[in-house]
């Protein structure tokens, strides 16, 4: 197991496209924002892509509500963000394919189109991937695209859509678009995948499943596992022993600022157990995959701010 994150970041940033994948709720978008800040620090221009995010992390970077659903906007020097809306992406695609602008609106507003579009299997995903590939091809505007993959929960189904589409649609632009997406996904110099997990059973199990599927079924280059929300060591061994002893002895009283000792001890025990779990899952990931493991700390804040994101970026840069 290599454990040198500047090298890992170099490897990720040498690509045009980095997909972040992981179970819902593991903080992929926060990790994406931290990675974007790392890229920015290296003087790169980077696009952070979210998909239909109800609370896009872009807004922590300065993104405004009501931004374009298809065109990235620069929110910090060198950082562009976009929260893609599949319907808007589809419309843009039709406009480009159809050439005749005046018909586009009629098509898009026709009930047939509405019905077909809302139920057509995989079409929105395919269009999104096509759009993402277009973004990576725009070398004049930026160096890197980071994608917070939508948490569909169906494993890597987002990345598997072009394979089904390619098999089902043997000819025509949509089939060809699917094949173009596949060739980009499988080009290890173009695209890399990083799996994000948190130290919990389900997230780790699914993260490992993603890795396996990514390699076996998609053929994408997996580069790293990022373990987010790690509880760090606060207490040393003797302090831990003392905490447990005081808890068992029903110790009471008040610490400074009126903090109840009992409450603090209970909080400490929770922290210690979570810390232990963090270590457990770190070990498990290290055993299960030869990929480098990057750790990010759990942040205790009601809402993250830009400073928190910068802190996380610094952690990615200066990994022990």
């Amino acid at each position, binding site marked *: 197991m290599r454990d040198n994150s500047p090298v890992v970041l170099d490897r990720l940033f040498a690509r045009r496209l980095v997909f972040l994948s992981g179970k819902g709720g593991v903080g992929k978008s926060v990790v994406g924002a931290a990675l974007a800040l790392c890229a920015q620090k290296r003087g790169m221009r980077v696009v952070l892509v979210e998909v239909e995010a109800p609370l896009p992390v872009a807004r922590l970077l300065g993104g405004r509500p009501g931004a374009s659903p298809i065109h990235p906007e620069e929110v910090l020097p060198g950082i562009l963000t976009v929260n893609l809306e599949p319907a808007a992406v589809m419309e843009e695609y039709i406009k480009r394919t159809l050439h005749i602008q005046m*018909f586009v609106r*009629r098509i898009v507003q026709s009930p047939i189109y509405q019905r077909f579009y809302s139920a057509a299997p995989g079409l929105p995903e395919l269009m999104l991937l096509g759009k993402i590939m277009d973004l990576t091809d725009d070398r004049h505007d930026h160096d890197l695209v980071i994608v917070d993959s939508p*948490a*569909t929960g169906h494993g890597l189904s987002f990345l598997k859509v072009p394979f*089904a589409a390619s098999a089902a649609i043997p000819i025509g632009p949509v089939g060809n678009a699917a094949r173009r997406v596949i060739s980009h996904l499988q080009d290890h110099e173009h695209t890399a995948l990083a799996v994000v997990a948190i130290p919990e*059973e389900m997230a780790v199990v*699914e993260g490992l499943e993603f890795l396996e599927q990514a390699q076996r079924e998609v053929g994408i280059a997996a580069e790293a596992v990022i373990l987010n929300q790690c509880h760090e060591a606060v207490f040393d061994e003797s302090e831990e022993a003392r905490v447990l002893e005081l808890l068992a002895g029903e*110790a009471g009283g008040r610490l400074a600022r009126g903090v109840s000792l009992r*409450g603090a001890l209970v909080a400490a025990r929770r922290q210690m157990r979570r810390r232990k779990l963090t270590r457990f899952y770190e070990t498990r990931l290290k055993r299960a995959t030869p990929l480098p493991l990057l750790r990010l700390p759990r942040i205790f804040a009601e809402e993250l701010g830009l400073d928190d994101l910068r802190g996380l970026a610094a952690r990615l840069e200066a990994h022990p």
Partner: protein
Amino acid sequence: MSPRREPAAALREALQERHVIVVCGAGGVGKTTTAAALGVQAAMLGRRVLVCTIDPSRRLATSLGLTRLSDKPRALTLARVAPDAAGEMSAMMLDTKSTFDALVHRYAKDEAARDRILQNRFYKHVSAALHGSHEYMAMEKLLELTLDERFDLVVLDTPPTLHALDFLEAPDRLMSFLDASVLRFFLRPYFAAGRVTLRIATRTGALALKLADRLLGLQFLQDLSEFFLAFESMYDGFKERAAKVHALLRDPSSGFVLVTAPNAATLDEARYFHERLTEKQMPFVALIVNRLHPDPAQEPDPGGPLPTLPAGLDAKLIAVHRDMQALARAEAKTLIRLEVDTGEPPLLVPELETDIHDLRGLREAGDLILGARTLPRRRVRRAAGARA
């Protein structure tokens, strides 16, 4: 607010009496674990319960400490974790593709029609990935399972959609997609024995077809129209099943349990979902908030003089107390807003100090859910008053 039953009691009663419990929520909120934990509790209450999960990532299997779960119900041994359980518990995993195949078998008018569908390229590659097919098949399976006499309660875990609501809407979307009358119009030339002509009633129709041809290619449109032609005879059968599911989900013997985590995004989902349930007249049972951080300041102080602490430990203790309290307070604030908006007191389930991946853990999680507290009434009333 009018006096109401304790939400935990309402949930217990539902586990005792209803025949279907659908567990919904956005992805990543502990929905599968909750479904399995409620299953164990129902078995303890004497029910013969089946927990059915749809998740292809085998989460329930993990929760149950199993490495594999077949798509046939499999009985679990509860003796070690709930020795006095009067009921029984089984678990299974839904296989979307084989459920879809089974439906085709059931409704195809003859072998030829059946094979035309099963061999169709569009069907083979796309049926399992069909938008909403997971959700539709989940409900289809639910219908089948409710008729299975081995079980008197089915707890259905729902697919991990980005939005909890997709689960309710996907079946309608799928049915409307399969409604050949629309596509018949759209694909008319292809329906006519695959002959490509552009005899189409309206200009928009002709345009749409031209667009489809340009985008998707002739071969795909032919596959698609073959699929719909073959499917047409089955559509009524599907529709009839869909109507039964529709009725089942609104039956008073069914109930929805909404699961959420204490963060702004999933709570917004929960709020919206609750609204839609009410609007669709689906029976709501309980709102469960998982992974809540208890406020350490609420721990009862045993009193007494402060014991001597090693140098530096007090500062660390104050720091962890502060972190945990900040989190707990932020969560409580959002939850109070949720209760004011929905009028449903959420069941507050504290974050466990360890992970759940076996039956014992599920048993304990279920105990926690049924013993869960709600928010302090006083604070909710105050917030509601401030809102008004």
